């Protein structure tokens, strides 16, 4: 039997990006870790989903290496994490580690609820792991030079899912990637009870309006205010696209306030050929497919406008931080670091079908196998030219999605002029 110390060292060394000695100074201190880490995430401690299985694995590995440490997972409903965390922080009962959506990062950070990770992350993590994370995500967590969180599971948020069998009816392999071509195709895909295109327009944290707008590229967001021009020429063009999709029957004017979950259910029962979907649910979509073969499911970027590249709006995505009020920030940070070990990256990929956080992990032969084909498609989206995120400090983040969704419902369901609808949205936001 290997001795406990030896075991611990080898594992930790592996964690340190495969570079054996860089980690040594850190090893000495990490052996002393003891206490309890409380984690708030949407993953359950006893959950059965692949991500939950992997999280359990990571925790087991962490507590094996730190026998005096207790890791407590307290799952919270995923839409409530940020709100619960800020309330808990104000009342001095926050957990040590928090999972949250990047769109709320600016607000949570402004409330002083997150610890500055620059002071906490180990030297080897900074040298070996940080540069290995996707910069587009990692840099968004840096506020005024201070790193307040680490992104987890690189992935586009709202992607286009489509049925290859439906597209094949038109002799196509995938939906066209410019709106000019997409619109007629989506119209022709409407057949019988099936609609060409399905958009969720009632979620409070995403809006298809902004996803369509992202076809104009990152310049839609003002660099200083973080706002987009709600009633500008580009927004009006989005309005026209929506109106054309309604006119040619691709969008239904009686399907106005579906949530992402509703679209998902109805896609399973064959109602749509193409939908806006929450990209991390790809495997789930496959599983519940009832009216078509799950293997016909595929993912695409959003069409672009004119000759712009297809758009990929990365967000909201998950990001992990340490509470500013944690009693044991060193321990909390050590646990957070363990989420990004190479083994962890491989487990997230192999068990849960997620793009690995460590870019270097993609060199693993596993990603060349047919099993990893879905992951491969997602990594391609991440390196597409039209990739962008939400601005770091997007104003009125709790209002902008519901307001734009109501505008979208009005565009789809009424005859009111595009200008009037967008002007009202603009004044509701007060932008």
């Amino acid at each position: 039997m290997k001795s406990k110390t030896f075991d611990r060292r080898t594992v930790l060394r592996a964690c340190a990006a495969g570079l054996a000695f860089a980690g040594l100074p850190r090893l000495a201190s990490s052996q002393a870790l003891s206490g309890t880490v409380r984690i708030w995430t949407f993953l359950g401690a006893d959950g059965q989903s692949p991500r939950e299985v992997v999280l359990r694995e990571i925790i087991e590995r962490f507590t094996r290496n730190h026998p005096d440490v207790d890791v407590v997972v307290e799952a919270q409903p995923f839409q409530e994490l940020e709100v619960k965390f800020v309330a808990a922080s104000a009342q001095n009962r926050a957990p040590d580690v928090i999972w949250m959506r990047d769109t709320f990062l600016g607000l949570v950070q402004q409330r002083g609820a997150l610890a500055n990770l620059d002071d906490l992350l180990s030297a080897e993590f900074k040298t070996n792991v940080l540069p290995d994370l996707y910069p587009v995500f990692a840099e968004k967590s840096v506020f005024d030079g201070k790193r307040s969180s680490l992104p987890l599971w690189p992935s586009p948020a709202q992607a286009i899912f489509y049925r290859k069998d439906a597209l094949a009816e038109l002799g196509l392999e995938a939906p066209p990637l410019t709106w000019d071509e997409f619109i007629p195709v989506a119209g022709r895909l409407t057949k019988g009870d099936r609609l060409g295109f399905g958009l969720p327009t009632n979620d409070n944290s995403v809006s298809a309006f902004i996803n369509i707008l992202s076809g104009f590229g990152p310049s839609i967001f003002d660099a200083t205010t973080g706002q987009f021009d709600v009633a500008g020429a580009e927004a009006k063009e989005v309005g026209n696209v929506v109106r054309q999709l309604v006119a040619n029957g691709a969008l239904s004017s009686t399907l106005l306030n579906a949530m992402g979950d509703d679209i998902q259910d109805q896609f399973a029962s064959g109602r749509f050929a193409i939908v806006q979907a929450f990209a991390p649910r790809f495997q789930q979509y496959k599983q519940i497919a009832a009216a078509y073969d799950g293997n016909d499911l595929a993912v695409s970027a959003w069409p672009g406008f004119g000759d712009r590249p297809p758009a990929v709006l990365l967000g909201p995505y998950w990001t992990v931080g340490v509470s500013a009020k944690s009693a044991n920030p060193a321990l909390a940070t050590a646990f957070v670091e363990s989420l990004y070990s190479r083994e962890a990256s491989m487990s997230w990929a192999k068990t849960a079908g997620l793009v690995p956080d460590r870019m270097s992990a993609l060199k693993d032969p596993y990603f060349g196998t047919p099993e990893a084909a879905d992951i491969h498609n997602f990594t391609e989206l991440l390196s597409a030219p039209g990739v962008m995120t939400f601005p770091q400090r997007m104003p009125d983040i709790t209002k902008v999605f519901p307001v734009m969704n109501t505008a979208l419902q009005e565009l789809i369901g009424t005859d009111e002029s595009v200008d009037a609808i967008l002007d009202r949205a603009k004044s509701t936001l007060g932008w």
Partner: protein
Amino acid sequence: MQHPPLASQHSLDVLARRARLVGSSLVGPALLLVVAINILPAIYGFYLSLHEVFFFGNEGFAGLKNYTELLRDSFAWQAIGRSLLFTFASLAIAVPLALLAAMGVRRLGRWGSVLLTVLLVPWAMSPIVVALLWKWILVPSPGGLVGAIFTAFGMPPQDLLTDPVLAMPTLIIVAVWRNFAFATIILIGGLGQIPRDLYKAASVDGLDAWESFCKITLPLLAPSLLIVISMLTISYFNEVQLIIGLTGGGPIRQTSTLAYSLYHTGFVELNQGKGNAIAVIMFLINMGLIAVYIRILGKQAGAAA
């Protein structure tokens, strides 16, 4: 109680004071709990409604700004309009239905109580569970329960929750489904208090069933009907879980009632100052409704005595 025959004024005072002390200390614990759980937080809520509070950060005293903004906001008035529509349309369906059920249950005798039990099952369920259940039943697909019924009649499945015309009526039907049977119980009680002789006399006088319903049942049932109406009014006016679960206030704000606006403003937009202002307005409206309710009860008790 046996008083000492020659009690002095002083000892009577002592007795009265002692009785008062005992009485107050018996009410004390209940009062304390109710104040701590309901009243103190409500007062704090009122305090917050006078401040600008966003995402748990108090940005300072705002006076009546939250209230004046609401008064000037056309969406807030629309929300009040929709609350009225939702409340009164639900009432208009629930009360006749409850009356019909109450008369049916009484006529059926033993089987009637079985029927009543069956009808009351939805009332025992939680609103959030009811919302989940109906979301599932109404899935607009031939694979959903209601969708399959449409398909059986040769119609495509309908978007009952996402169509701007159909969403509100659908919501109303679900709300009525959940709790109309509760009103039935009270109406059965009311019907039981109408003397049977009156109906016999009516049939001797040659009144048909409809005439005796209009001339005897309705007037004598009026007190129970008023109780039912005021209780259901309060319940429908405050309904929010069903709306959150089924329509999320949409489509195009068609189901954004005042209660839903409270939730949306305070818990989605996280504008907790304004959210509490809506809560204060709702509290005042509720107090008004309860006052009417108590007045009706008082009258009824007076009439019975």
